[in-house]
């Protein structure tokens, strides 16, 4: 009795539900909702997956760095070390001559960043706001400097510096940066030009009416408004100089007296055993490292991590402004 009643009810309800879904309006609404849901799901999976691909090696390296040397071959240890230890870090610091190299790299990157900002901001401003006949032709040269690979110029530049005795001195890098020919300066000029172009021209005009000179307009009005471009260019200039292994190698800037992180890292990676031997890192781990070649690879990885870590920390500090600056004005116009 009762069961048949319930069945009847369900039948009536099913018809109602089918009717509801058969209405054209609800069909459309549900189609849209489903589409949106799958779109979101798809986007989430893609973005999450790629974030994972980016973060995975970094997390893995941090986990490996904190592992005690006897855990290196332990297949049971995948993520969380069984024995925590700072030994790997200690050895890497010795191998890289880390603190001195860090300080030198910081000094080189920071000064060259300031010089790059100076020369490229001025040129970018002149190309966007102080245009004159022929300035577009000059700008074509900026594009050419972007496209030409540094290898085509290095020999002649090297010979210059050899003649003037600047080979092996950091001043060679500063000179190039200060004259707007440093690492990818062309792109920076391009960014500044687009940025200054995007600022409202009323700003400059009202300053002119108030009697400000061209320089004051630039210095007191336009430059403070270009914070976004300054952050972007500053970050890139710093990072690219930090990571640079090309100019530094050709101009032979890194030396015993002035070690730089990139060159130390490359030298160490290419001859880890020798590096351990000469820097005295061997005494920290014992002579029998050859029994475990994975260990040498591990030290080389930890050294790479040590070089990236300051950049990552710095990026965390400025990342908000950096992402915002991309958002606020198109770098490309």
């Amino acid at each position, binding site marked *: 009795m009762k069961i048949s009643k319930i069945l009847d009810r369900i039948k009536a309800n099913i018809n109602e539900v089918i009717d509801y879904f058969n209405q054209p309006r609800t069909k459309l609404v549900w189609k849209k909702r489903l589409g949106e849901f799958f779109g979101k799901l798809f986007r989430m999976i893609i973005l999450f997956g790629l*974030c994972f691909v980016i973060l995975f090696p*970094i997390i893995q390296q941090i986990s490996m760095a904190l592992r005690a040397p006897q855990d290196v071959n332990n297949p049971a240890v995948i993520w969380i070390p069984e024995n925590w230890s700072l030994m790997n870090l200690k050895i890497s610091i010795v191998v890289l001559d880390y603190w001195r190299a860090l300080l030198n790299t910081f000094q080189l990157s920071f000064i060259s960043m300031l010089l790059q900002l100076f020369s490229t901001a001025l040129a970018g401003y002149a190309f966007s706001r102080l245009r004159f006949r022929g300035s577009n032709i000059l700008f074509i040269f900026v594009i050419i400097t972007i496209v*030409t690979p540094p290898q085509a110029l290095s020999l002649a530049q090297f010979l210059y510096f050899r003649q003037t005795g600047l080979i092996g001195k950091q001043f060679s890098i500063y000179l190039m940066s200060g004259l707007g020919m440093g690492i990818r*300066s062309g792109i920076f000029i391009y960014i500044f030009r687009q940025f200054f172009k995007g600022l409202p021209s009323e700003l400059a005009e009202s300053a002119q009416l108030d009697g400000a000179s061209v*320089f004051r307009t630039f210095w007191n009005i336009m430059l403070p408004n270009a914070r976004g471009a300054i952050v972007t260019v500053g970050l890139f200039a710093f990072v690219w100089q930090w990571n640079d292994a090309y100019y530094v190698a050709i101009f032979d800037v890194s030396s015993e007296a002035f070690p730089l992180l990139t060159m130390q890292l490359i030298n160490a990676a290419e001859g880890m055993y020798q590096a351990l031997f000469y820097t005295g890192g061997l005494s920290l781990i014992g002579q029998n490292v050859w029994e475990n070649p994975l260990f040498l690879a591990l030290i080389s990885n930890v050294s*790479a991590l040590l070089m990236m870590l300051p950049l990552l920390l710095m990026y965390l500090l400025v990342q908000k402004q950096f992402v915002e600056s991309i958002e606020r004005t198109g770098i*490309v116009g």
Partner: protein
Amino acid sequence: MAELVKKINKAPISSGPRQYRKQKLIWAFVFLTPWILGLLIFFIIPFFRSLYFSFYTLEPTPDGIILTFNGFKNYFYALNQHVTSNTSFRVELINTTLDALINIPVLLIFSLFIAVLLNMKFRGRAFVRAIFFIPVILNSAAVTTALGGGDAIASILAEQGINQIFDLEFYLVQTGMMPWLITFIVGLIDRIYVVLSLAGVPILLFLASIQSVPKHLYEAAKIEGATGYETFWLITLPNVSPHIITVTVYALVDSFLTSPVSGIISQELGKSNRWGESAAMAWIYVSTIILILLLFAVFAKIFKIGGSHYEN
């Protein structure tokens, strides 16, 4: 310099727009001076000098460098004779060119796609964006060398049979897939990290250019009931396409810069008896890039990429 500043500051400014234009011109040259000096000393002169050197044998002596003309010998050497312990200039050049031809279209599509995704509004967007620019920061030749463990360590590991922890190919073969499909999938996955590490700046450029598309176009499309798919093809893509050229140029130069070819040129530069050869290599390298760019330009012209969508 200081006197010039004083003079310009003292100049009467209120004396009309003509005076102001003159002042602007003077300042334009003052602002451009460092760059023009750099262009002359570090770009134009080296550019022609290295072209000149590529036809000579250079011999450094204590009194200076002795130049002997040898025609195209350096170029022949670079293409036919140069070998290092495990590779040669010609092989690497061909590999890099083929890689670039495959990678760049993939890179363009990928970075445009990601830029569109990152431009959407969703929870945690700032966080995801911050992560996507990490490869830009960590993209360094030194780090790559160290992560590869250097040649010495890699060979030791290979000797002991520990070259790969997870062998994807092995698993796929066991599933009974077709061999060409397996090669394709493995190649694609190997490429993901390469593409990701090159994609940072292109994503940034595309993101910026998407954001410079006038907002009212999107609003109008929404009112007309366009779907996200239609909006992309009819509004985003045509407006972004001029920047495809910029991104292509950047990606091409970048992928060549980080390739073994540039490593070989630097190595040759390090040996003082091979300067002429290294100049010739550099010029082969530059002309390859220019050739590829021309190819892309012709391609773009045929398919009308980069032209404005609204003019016709």
